[in-house]
């Protein structure tokens, strides 16, 4: 309190009034004189305001009735035409029914209720000294009567027990879900699992994949899974065929593609959106959620955006019948990063 520096609080010597003639601060001039509204002085204006309020209440009633009529007059049949008519008329009716009650009340208050400003005194939040002394005494007395100060073991026991009591509630939540284990690292892809079209699950012939084409792919056995959405959330794949010459050679991935047909995880390594946009000319894959951009010619390395890791590649080959199959599961966990990912 002592070190507040206020120029015009009158405490600073520099602001001493000279000879008490001119005050240090301006004085609050008090409320300006009340100005009457038209309706206060002109009975005709008051009458007019009354009529306006009544008119608004009338509009409200019309709106409510219109809503009820429209509800029965416009049944829905699953087409947008009826839906639109119904929604607009119900909205206008109900909206007007409610809105005009509001305007009527506000108009009434503003024109016909007294508008002379009133004062309330404020009182400091701080209690009086007597109240504070009494309160402190009561707390001390309460503490003494509880006897906890004299019996420290009870206090200690109480704190300990109270700290322990919520723990069962925490433990109780254990069965909200299974421990993660290695679940995120494994998908339905495995040696010989056919690549199939999303969502029909029809297997894909290697010969059908022409240069420049792109396929949204799921494992052929996806729908045999009990939780196929969970599996799809990890196993979704994008299949693209490019001229093999445009792709940088990586010795460790030799034989992972089939004549320039590449399969990459479709799940963004940022936060898991589907990387669904393929720019055929630049061979870039773009995630529409946060614009992470992956370059197919550099084994889907990140070239822009918030993702760090390249999209995992699915090694593929062709089976006896000419269908594309996986050589194995992904060799690293697909999708967003997580702590145990390593």
């Amino acid at each position, binding site marked *: 309190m002592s070190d507040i520096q206020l120029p015009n609080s009158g405490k600073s010597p520099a602001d001493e009034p000279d000879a008490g003639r001119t005050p240090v601060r301006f004085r*609050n001039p008090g409320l300006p004189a009340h100005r009457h509204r038209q309706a206060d002085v002109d009975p005709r204006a008051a009458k007019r305001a009354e009529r306006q309020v009544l008119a608004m209440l009338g509009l409200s009633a019309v709106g409510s009735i219109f809503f009820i009529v429209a509800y029965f007059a416009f049944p829905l049949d699953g087409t947008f035409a009826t839906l639109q008519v119904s929604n607009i008329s119900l909205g206008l009716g109900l909206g007007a029914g409610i809105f005009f009650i509001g305007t009527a009340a506000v108009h009434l208050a503003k024109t016909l209720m007294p508008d002379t400003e009133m004062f309330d005194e404020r009182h400091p939040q701080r209690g009086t000294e007597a109240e504070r002394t009494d309160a402190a005494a009561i707390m001390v007395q309460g503490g003494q009567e509880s006897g906890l100060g004299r019996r420290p073991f009870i206090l200690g026991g109480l704190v300990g027990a109270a700290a322990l009591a919520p723990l069962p509630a925490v433990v109780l939540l254990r069965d909200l879900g299974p421990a993660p284990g290695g679940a995120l690292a494994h998908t339905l892809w495995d040696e010989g699992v056919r690549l199939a079209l999303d969502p029909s699950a029809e297997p894909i012939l290697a010969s059908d994949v022409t240069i420049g084409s792109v396929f949204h792919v799921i494992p052929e056995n996806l729908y045999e899974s009990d939780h196929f959405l969970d599996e799809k959330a990890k196993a979704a794949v994008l299949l693209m065929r490019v001229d093999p010459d445009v792709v940088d050679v990586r010795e460790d991935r030799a034989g992972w593609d089939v004549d320039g047909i590449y399969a990459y995880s479709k799940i963004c390594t940022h*936060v898991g959106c589907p990387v669904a946009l393929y720019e055929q000319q630049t061979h870039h894959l773009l995630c529409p959620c946060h614009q992470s951009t992956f370059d197919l010619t550099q084994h889907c390395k990140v070239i822009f955006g918030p993702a760090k890791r390249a999209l995992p590649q699915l090694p593929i080959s062709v089976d006896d019948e000419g269908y594309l199959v996986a050589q194995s599961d992904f060799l690293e966990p697909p999708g967003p990063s997580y702590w145990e990912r390593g």
Partner: protein
Amino acid sequence: MSTTGTNAYTPTSRTARLSAGAADYLDERIGAARLVKGFARKVFPDHWSFMLGEVALYSFVILLISGTFLTLFYVPSMTLVEYEGSYAPMYGVTMSEAYASSLNLSFDIRGGLLMRQVHHWSALIFVAAIVVHMLRVFFTGAFRKPREFNWVLGVILAVLALAEGFTGYSLPDDLLSGNGLRIIEGVILAIPVVGTYIVFFLFGGEFPGESIIPRLYILHVFVLPGLILAVIALHLALVVAHKHTQYPGPGRTNDNVVGFPLLPVYAAKAGGFFFIVFGVIILISGLVSINAIWNYGPYDPSPISAGTQPDWYIGFVDGLLRLMPGQPEFTIAGFTLSLNVFLPSLVVPGLMVVALLAYPFLEQWVTGDKREHHLLDRPRNAPVRTGIGVMAIVSYCVMWAAAGNDLMAIAFGLSINDLTWLLRFAFFVLPPVAFVVTKRICLSLQRKDRELALHGHETGRVVRTADGEYFEVHEPLSETERWVLVQHEAYRPLAIPPKKHEDGRKVPAHERLRANLSNFFFEDRVEPVTPRELEAARHHGDHEAIEQPEGREAERRELGSSV
């Protein structure tokens, strides 16, 4: 009315006798007389900006009403069913019961779409009103003692509102909301050490699982609204305990509250305003479509539509996720630390909340002002605080705009990469610029106030004196006009102490920090006009229509120097 002037109230008409009977009944059982006496004539000050909090409160009530209607038809289940409702394009499609029931609400329940849209629009308006209300409180210094706790409660309400909004956004289980959930999953996975476990506990296993919708549902319709209601009750109880703040003005002091009584004026105005807010939201919902879930289809982890956007209030987090470069993801000792996700999505928003919670206490520590403040600041009179506020708005807006970088790139034909880089720079450059500019504008406005208080209004009347000089006549302000310009106080900065006292003791670092902050806040300041200054200005006769020869002398000198 006819009884005014008599001491005891004697009911005259039949209605009056009945209500007197009811009043007597209630008073003897719940002490109604004391309640009425204590509250019914409570005075509230009038200002449009005080209605922002009301909008937030009313849209919450509207959310409760419309939401209750929705629960009558919505099924919070992820069990897969075949859609058999009347919307033909989806007929036979496999989808969750949640999505199917949301479609039914739109296509088969009359007024269901209207209520869905009322619910969604009022959710958007609820959060927006909270934010704007918060800005009003910030810029006018209404968070100062004794209202610090109420500011904290307000911040908690804002966070709860975001959580409530997000849990509701996910419930229709359409493609858009499902992708939103997927992003949340990715964000939680990025939490070091425990992230994967939280995901598995939250989703009941792997994403998406079959538990998340019912779990979000109970949070959305019970836990979070319950918490919000409880905090709103505390928030309002404190408003009653403190009485409302008021803007400075003639007759308004720190010790009074000037305005209109609850009964009848505010009962009518505030009650009427509830109906207006409700009515406007219904009208918007009748006329403007929102979240057309039938366009998106059921959730499926593989497809996505381009240009996906979250609801506006989550936009800043999404934008930050887009702005953050991917580099800071590390593998340490076999564990992955994904700072490229963790920092923008959780750490920065967390720090924003901490900064909001801390600001009132920080400012009070710097000013050392422990007095109660019930008169609001005009934002210009707190230039650094206003600068900080605008800086926060600007950085929020950059983050928020970043969430629409794809749409902006398309609309303006820009490269999305260039635009993202531009926004990355803007994130660091614009906020400080906004701070400096705002502070300068505030100081200039204060100088303008001083000019006005000292010299009065320009009248536009130019007078030529007998000597052939010209000057413009200024009209002095009336006392009431002047008061608003001169009523405030300007803090002065603390002197920065030396590193050591004269006796060689070290000055504690926090004292020096406080003095430095105090200089940061109050070094540049424009102090309000004092009566003495006004008198001096009048004495010099400046630009006022005071017919005194020395006045014109002064005028001549000034004109001479400026020509």
